[in-house]
């Protein structure tokens, strides 16, 4: 990606535009080069990763996202924490934790917490599977795949399932003195979920994905 300065100068047609790539963080303009599988092209100015094709990336992303969805379902409905005090055991699921604020003054907070730890993570995974699964099987992209993928991208900072896991750990310590505390099945599902998500983000090279999506779309 060294010859960008000359190549990018006199382009105006739509076809030529798709041969260019703009660094999302610093606006530097490059001509798309072919990067070998496993390689990574970075922006020379800010170091942002521009292209990082991986073998079977599409299939892996879809499988990891599907795995996350299954784990998420388990995490939602099984209790993730249980405490025993005075002979009474109380179990709490993620759903309970999200809805707990609704009994008190702060309904908006309940909605926000539910959105951050349940709605947005699930929506994001569904959007990724929907947009990419057909392509991972060699088919065309489904209708509105681009919108789905864009929404998944925009939701990313607001999906906070992994932060919730750390929150559980902190809460455990806080009440350890009050009662006997144990971790439920859902906690381990959530912890696995976090690992899977980290793996997924490593595979998900945004700009490469978008180029593939564009090429495989029926225009």
């Amino acid at each position, binding site marked *: 990606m060294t010859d960008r300065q000359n190549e*990018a100068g006199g382009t105006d047609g739509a076809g030529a535009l798709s041969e260019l790539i*703009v660094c999302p*963080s*610093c606006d530097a303009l490059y001509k798309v080069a072919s990067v070998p599988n496993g390689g990574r092209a970075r922006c020379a100015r800010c*170091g942002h990763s521009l292209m990082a094709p991986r073998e079977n990336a599409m299939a892996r992303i879809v499988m990891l996202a599907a795995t996350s969805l299954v784990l998420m379902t388990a995490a939602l409905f099984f209790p993730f924490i249980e405490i025993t005090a005075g002979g009474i055991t109380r179990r709490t699921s993620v759903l309970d*934790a999200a809805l707990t604020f609704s009994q008190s003054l702060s309904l908006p907070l309940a909605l926000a917490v539910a959105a951050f730890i349940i709605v947005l993570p699930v929506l994001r995974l569904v959007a990724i599977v929907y947009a990419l699964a057909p392509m991972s099987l060699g088919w065309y992209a489904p209708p509105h795949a681009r919108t789905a993928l*864009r929404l998944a991208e925009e939701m990313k900072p607001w999906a906070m399932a992994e932060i919730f896991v750390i929150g559980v750990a*902190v809460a455990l310590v806080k009440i350890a003195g009050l009662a006997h505390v144990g971790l439920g099945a859902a906690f381990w599902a959530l912890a696995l979920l976090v690992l899977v998500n980290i793996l997924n983000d490593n595979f998900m090279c*945004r700009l490469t994905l978008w180029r593939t999506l564009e090429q495989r779309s029926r225009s």
Partner: protein
Amino acid sequence: MAHARTTQPVLTAQKAGLLGCRICGRANLGTAQTCSRCGAALSRPAGLQPVLAWLLAGLIVYIPANTYPMLRTSMLGEETDSTILGGAIDLAHHGSWGVAGIVFVASILIPIAKFITIGYLAVAVHRGWPMQGRTRFHLYEIVEFIGRWSMIDVFVVAILVALVQFNLAATIAPGIAAVSFALSVIFTMLAAQAFDPRLIWQSADTDTE
């Protein structure tokens, strides 16, 4: 890549009369409103007003978040309120230094560092202060990455309230600070998102030319 400091001016999409999409990296014609690939709204590097507005909003709600109680615990009829800082200190008193550290870093250090960093970046870009290498850009990346982790304390409150209810000798209810702290985190996240990293590099460009 650490040595790839640029000394020569870089051709940006803006200089080429194009508009880059910040979601998918597609180059669009300078007159386009939405990206032709992903459909995201294209933004020209805009002013800092939205950044400062969100930052100020975050700062304002951060005050009650610290002065009002985060948790109201009633145990055997006795009510105790604990603020964010108080909660961290309690944990330290019980000997859980590690967790006290997490709470302290996530709820006190990170928010304050975020206010200072975003404020610094905004002023630096506005005044066009000269910059060395990528330091300022790295600051921005860190702030954008770390901002969401402040939500830990809000989730802890949600978990505690859900767990410790009725049946037990103790009950825990959320205080006003839980709401205002959550709002503060959300507002500063919006401030970081409103900050256009391209502005950081614009001031670098004017230095080299």
